[in-house]
């Protein structure tokens, strides 16, 4: 890999990726800007619960493409929009919908990173003559000559840490990816954006799931299935206590996520939370906050980063959702266990030192050794 090889920057139109493009271009690299067109924000507009006009400042909105194009023009770099709508729908949107219908709570950003941003984008980049891609993720990757592995580490700005969503990166992908913001804080990034004369230096961060307008995933799910001409699977059922006592009924398991308190429709002297969702019986178990704690989980389809494979128990800190403080746990190989484990990745048993609240099937469990990402998988 030569130093002056072309770098493709994934430009979303936000301040982070725009700043990456600015830094790399000003360093004298040959840079090409690419924006992935992933979802037509007007596609479901007007259906029940979906806003008519898509809001600005979200993935794939025309405003963002406009912003990205303006930045590329400002930097004098070639820029293209690449259509990956079909692949995004197949690999991110459809699994997102199916997971909810199966009573699980998906992480679409990780699916997008695994299937689109670091897979398809790298292919597209190579197709157009770029050997590496660069993104605005807050993460650090570096090659460890002793272990002969690419290592993914938490960034300098821990408040912006995106490693939770990057656990699926392969060694090949890490070797061809640059994270120029890994050693910077967000305020520093905004300052650099200002120094480079980027007008979007003060643009607010995007927070919600890019293809779900207004963050209302239930309306999205219903509208999407309606558009596809598919009936919403009948998943109405009983709300039960841990004792099995029937407390009421619900309209579909996709309305719930483990740990949820609101929207249960139950009158109770003490707060009730969703403890478990059984996709087979459609039964949703509710109970007290104290009953939400679990000590163990099974992680499937695990991708290892800092190690080649888990051969013996390993002490890590495990993070079970984006806003979870990693907790001490022991990993052990789980032989042949778990559903959907057909050949793709290992399954591991994660045993926490202290019980953790609301372990949620469908989310990912990411394992840390200090700042390093050991690997991660999907909670069964």
């Amino acid at each position, binding site marked *: 890999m030569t130093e002056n090889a072309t770098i493709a920057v994934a430009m979303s139109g936000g301040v982070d990726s725009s700043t990456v493009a600015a830094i790399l271009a000003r360093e004298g690299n040959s840079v090409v800007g690419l*924006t992935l067109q992933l979802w037509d924000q007007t596609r479901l507009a007007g259906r029940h619960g979906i806003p008519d006009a898509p809001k600005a400042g979200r993935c794939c909105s*025309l405003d963002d493409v406009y912003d990205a194009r303006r930045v590329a023009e400002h930097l004098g770099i070639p820029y293209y929009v690449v259509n*990956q709508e*079909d692949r*995004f729908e197949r690999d991110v949107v459809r699994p997102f919908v199916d997971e909810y219908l199966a009573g699980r709570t998906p992480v679409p950003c990780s699916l997008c990173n695994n299937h689109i941003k670091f897979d398809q984008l790298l*292919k597209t980049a190579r197709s157009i003559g770029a050997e590496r891609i660069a993104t605005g993720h807050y993460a650090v990757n570096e090659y460890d000559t002793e272990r002969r592995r690419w290592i993914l580490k938490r960034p300098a700005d821990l408040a912006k840490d995106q490693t939770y969503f990057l656990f699926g990166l392969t060694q090949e992908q890490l070797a061809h990816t640059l994270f120029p913001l890994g050693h910077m804080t967000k305020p520093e990034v905004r300052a650099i954006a200002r120094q480079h004369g980027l007008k979007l230096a003060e643009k607010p961060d995007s927070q919600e799931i890019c293809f779900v307008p207004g963050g209302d995933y239930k309306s999205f799910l219903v509208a999407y299935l309606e558009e596809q001409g598919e009936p919403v699977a009948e998943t109405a059922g009983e709300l039960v206590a841990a004792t099995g006592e029937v407390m009421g009924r619900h309209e579909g398991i996709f309305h719930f996520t483990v740990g949820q308190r609101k929207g249960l429709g139950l009158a109770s002297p003490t707060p009730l939370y969703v403890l478990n969702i059984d996709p087979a019986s459609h039964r949703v178990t509710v109970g007290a906050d104290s009953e939400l704690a679990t000590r163990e989980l099974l992680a499937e389809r695990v991708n290892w980063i800092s190690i080649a494979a888990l051969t013996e128990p390993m002490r890590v800190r495990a993070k079970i959702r984006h806003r979870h403080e990693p907790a001490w746990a022991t990993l052990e190989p789980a032989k042949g266990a778990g559903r959907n484990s057909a050949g793709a990745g290992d399954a591991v048993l994660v045993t926490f030192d202290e019980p953790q609240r609301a372990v949620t099937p469908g989310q990912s469990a990411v394992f840390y050794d200090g700042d390093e990402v050991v690997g991660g998988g999907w909670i069964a």
Partner: protein
Amino acid sequence: MPRVYMDANATTPLLPEVMEAMRPFWMEDFGNASSIHRQGQRARMAVDRARETLARLFNCREAEVVFNSGGTEGDNTALFGLVRPGDHLITTAIEHSAVLRAAERLEDRGAEVTFVPPLANGLIDPGAIRAAIRPHTRLISVMLANNETGVLQPVEEIGKIASEAGAFFHIDAVQGAGKVAFDVRRFGCHLLSISAHKMHGPKGVGGLYVRRGTPLEPLVVGGSHERRQRAGTENVPGIVGLGKAAELAMESIDDGAIEPLAALRDRLEAGILAISGTSVNGACAPRVANTTNIRFEQVEGEALVIALDLKGVAVSGGSACHSGSTEPSHVLMAMGLDKNAARASLRFSLLRTATEADVDHVLRIVPEAVEHLRAIAPVAAGTAG
């Protein structure tokens, strides 16, 4: 790095003569063609001269030429100006979106629309048009040349069918203008739209032939410009440019100057077909001289367009969607290609001014780029998203 532009069906540069003809009408002869004074009169004369030229291009009366903002407006005017709720419209699945979206809107408003599919080679079968005729068929709208494949449609035969059925006939001739000889009488059409920028004229100006007596309701209303057919102050420099471009196009067709273009295109096509896994979409049909649409098996067309652009070759694939990325061509899919095959197809469309050196350059770049793409990210037929 030399840049070769082979996307003439998207747009073309002005020819120097066109630029020169337009020049006085920006600052010196800037008058409003509707004004009584001398400045206005000079503008009026320029517009009239351009109208004479277009009348010669179309082979019609001067009073049958309406200037407008381009092909989309011409197509929209033809459809919205004739078709009412309850009427039946026949058009084809391979029209430009200016016709397709207008037809869909008419459908929403209570008109019936038949979208006739093409044959596998991209030709519209006149028999299929005939079979679609209903007692209340009001308008038939078919393009002269397809923008993506260059396939020339049998408009004369369709004109006869329209006449027998007592239906109006509109031709979207945007991609034919400047490439093939026109004759609205031979075509048997009531309406025909063209755009200046596809034939080395300026953007934002076009012409619509409206046969005398056609009850066409104007799309744009206001002042009494263009015999009340199209309101709005005439775009005098644009109209002058359109007139000059039409004149040059006619000359190049009449004196055979355009003929070497077909030979250049054929050489380009043969050179690209030497790459394995390539085929021409619309090969077995009559085509305009400048266009070839080539399918590259196991190639993501969008990536190839970008790779070629970075190497100095400008071509296109599919149709531009709202964000600027590409969607698989509805034309190729109507011809029976699946999404992947449509995505794997690129359009090369040569300028009238294309040279042997342009073709040589493209033939140096394309095989290497295709090979690179196939090596890096082979797209297995029928599996990619």
